């Protein structure tokens, strides 16, 4: 780990074209994410956000380009990178017939936790997110908000250095959203770098320290929300900036 380098993720000319696709999903993007940032990767549907995050998590290899995570090459040191990252996918990735405790015990074990450490982490997070009482119930009996919260815990149980959040608050009520955002900020304050995607511009504006707007696999702009708003004449919030840059045409 190189502490003199403020960036925890460096992406150089990243490209990815899926089989049978006519256009690249990611078309030569380069950017860096600094340690302890809450970095928003924003864009309309099909912009290339999920593809970028999937590559960074090691789900599939890039077509070309280079990615360094915490100074390690994604191509050659994927296994050790996987120890320091956590992911909260957009879709609920839990076993519905298992309880929250059973789900978390399994996922925590897959990150290498076991014994007392695993149990303590599970109980601490269940308590934090108000799930202790329901922890032994099957996840299939949970509300959407409760499932989101368990989904979040499964990604942070091992205290990752970098956390990828793919629309973590989609489809949840205001109460659950506030609890989730609050605890994500707490995680960030504890040193976790957060990479976040969302269609919720107001949430992104308040939550992110820096954002990058991409479309058609290319970066349109990046900076702090305040910088982007001031740079785009007539824009009073991030949603205006987003619509000005990506235009108002409907996307698939």
């Amino acid at each position: 780990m190189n502490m003199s380098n403020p960036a925890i993720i460096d992406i150089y000319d990243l490209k990815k074209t899926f089989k049978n696709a006519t256009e690249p999903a990611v078309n030569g993007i380069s950017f860096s994410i600094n340690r302890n940032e809450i970095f928003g990767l924003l864009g309309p549907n099909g912009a290339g956000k999920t593809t970028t995050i999937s590559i960074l998590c090691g789900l599939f290899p890039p077509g070309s380009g280079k990615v360094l995570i915490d100074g390690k090459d994604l191509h050659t040191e994927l296994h050790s990178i996987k120890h320091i990252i956590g992911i909260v996918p957009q879709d609920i990735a839990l076993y519905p017939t298992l309880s929250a405790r059973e789900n978390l015990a399994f996922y925590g074990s897959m990150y290498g936790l076991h014994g007392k450490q695993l149990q303590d982490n599970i109980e601490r997070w269940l308590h934090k997110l108000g799930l202790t009482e329901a922890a032994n119930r099957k996840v299939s009996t949970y509300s959407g908000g409760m499932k989101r919260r368990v989904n979040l815990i499964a990604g942070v149980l091992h205290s990752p250095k970098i956390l990828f959040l793919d629309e973590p608050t989609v489809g949840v009520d205001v109460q659950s959203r506030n609890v989730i955002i609050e605890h994500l900020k707490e995680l960030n304050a504890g040193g976790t770098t957060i990479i976040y995607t969302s269609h919720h511009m107001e949430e992104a504006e308040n939550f992110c320290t820096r954002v990058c707007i991409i479309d058609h696999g290319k970066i349109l702009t990046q900076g702090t929300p305040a910088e982007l708003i001031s740079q785009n004449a007539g824009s009073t919030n991030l949603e205006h900036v987003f619509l000005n840059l990506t235009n108002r045409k409907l996307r698939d």
Partner: protein
Amino acid sequence: MLHKLLATVKKEILLLLRDKVGLSVLFIMPVALILVMTLIQDSAFKSINEKGIPVVFVDEDQDSLGLQIKQGLLSNDLVYLSDSIDSKPASSQSAKKAVSEGRFLVGIVIPKGATAAIRKNVSVLVNETMNGTPPAAETADSVQITILIDPIAKQSFLNAVTSNLREFISEVKTKIMFQTFSQQVAELIPDKQNAPRNPYQRSQIIHYNEVYASTATGKIVPNAVQHNVPAWTIFAMFFIAIPLSNSILKEKTEGSVFRLHTMPTPYLLLIMGKIVVYVLVCLLQFMLMLAVGKFLLPQLGLPALVLGNSMAGIFVLTTATALAATGFGVTVGTLATTDHQAAIMGSLSILLLSALGGIWVPSYVMPEVMRNISAFSPLNWSLEGFYKLFLRGGTVTDILPDAIKLLVFFFAMMGISYLANRKKRKV
């Protein structure tokens, strides 16, 4: 790594225990299958044995041949003989009609003058022999016994029955010929009156002793239980492919695989966890089926399953079968893209492999082409192995080639799954 494997095993056990339908498929269905199939086959066998094959007998001869065949058939447990139809004496016409309607499986018509014809033929033969005249074939009368057969009866079964009947009728005919011959000789040579009166019995110098060529110590008797329990247990073990492939696909559709691929745990270890659990399930299935064969079937009036001489052989072969079955399930789960697809792909391929493997119909009655194809079914390897243990009294050495083939199949399935999974991730 051990903690991870144990956590995966625990997760699989919990998932399995909470899937009530899957569990019933794994345990209740095979028990039901063994009970139903064994009872059907045993009762079919018993109904023939206890009541006998329904045979209508028409004696137009009313002499020695007709009477002796009738007496012989009446004393045979295999045959349920009737000489009347609807309380009227059977005629060749009414017998033909009754057999064609399925009221009797077989009909036997002894024509009028059959005994007289035999006697006449013997007389002609004796006279020719004594007088030294050449044989005159045209003077010999032929005896034509008609065997009527129900057209819907199974050919292989009928062949066995009619062949037995032909053999018996021929025996009676020979007996009459000998008796007639003996009488004729006694009349022509009076000083030979004290010659043995029953030369037929003395002519029976060949006797048949049918013994099962098993190396077991005489305790294994081939029956519906010895055949059915291993066959349907193997079938059930391979049916594990359906819940196993479903479990793999559920992880894909419910998003768990997405998360698992981002974790520092090799996918192979996750699959290993599944294999460990499902192999254990297969072994439990097998033990349950053995218990059914040994303890439950005798309560239903069926013979108890005899396990043969080699427990080590049973363990090796069962484990190899369990691995082959789980390997197959992993491949189905990897190749299929939806659970619906996996269910169809899994069940159809198992039905096909079991049919080819001799589970439904023994491979030795198959045409040569199918028999050759059958040799490539893992269910056939397993079944052959269990027959060696349960019917031929084989040992672990005897089943080793079958077990090795099953293990090679397991590794081949794992290889295919690995390559298919790798290809799928190369998007």
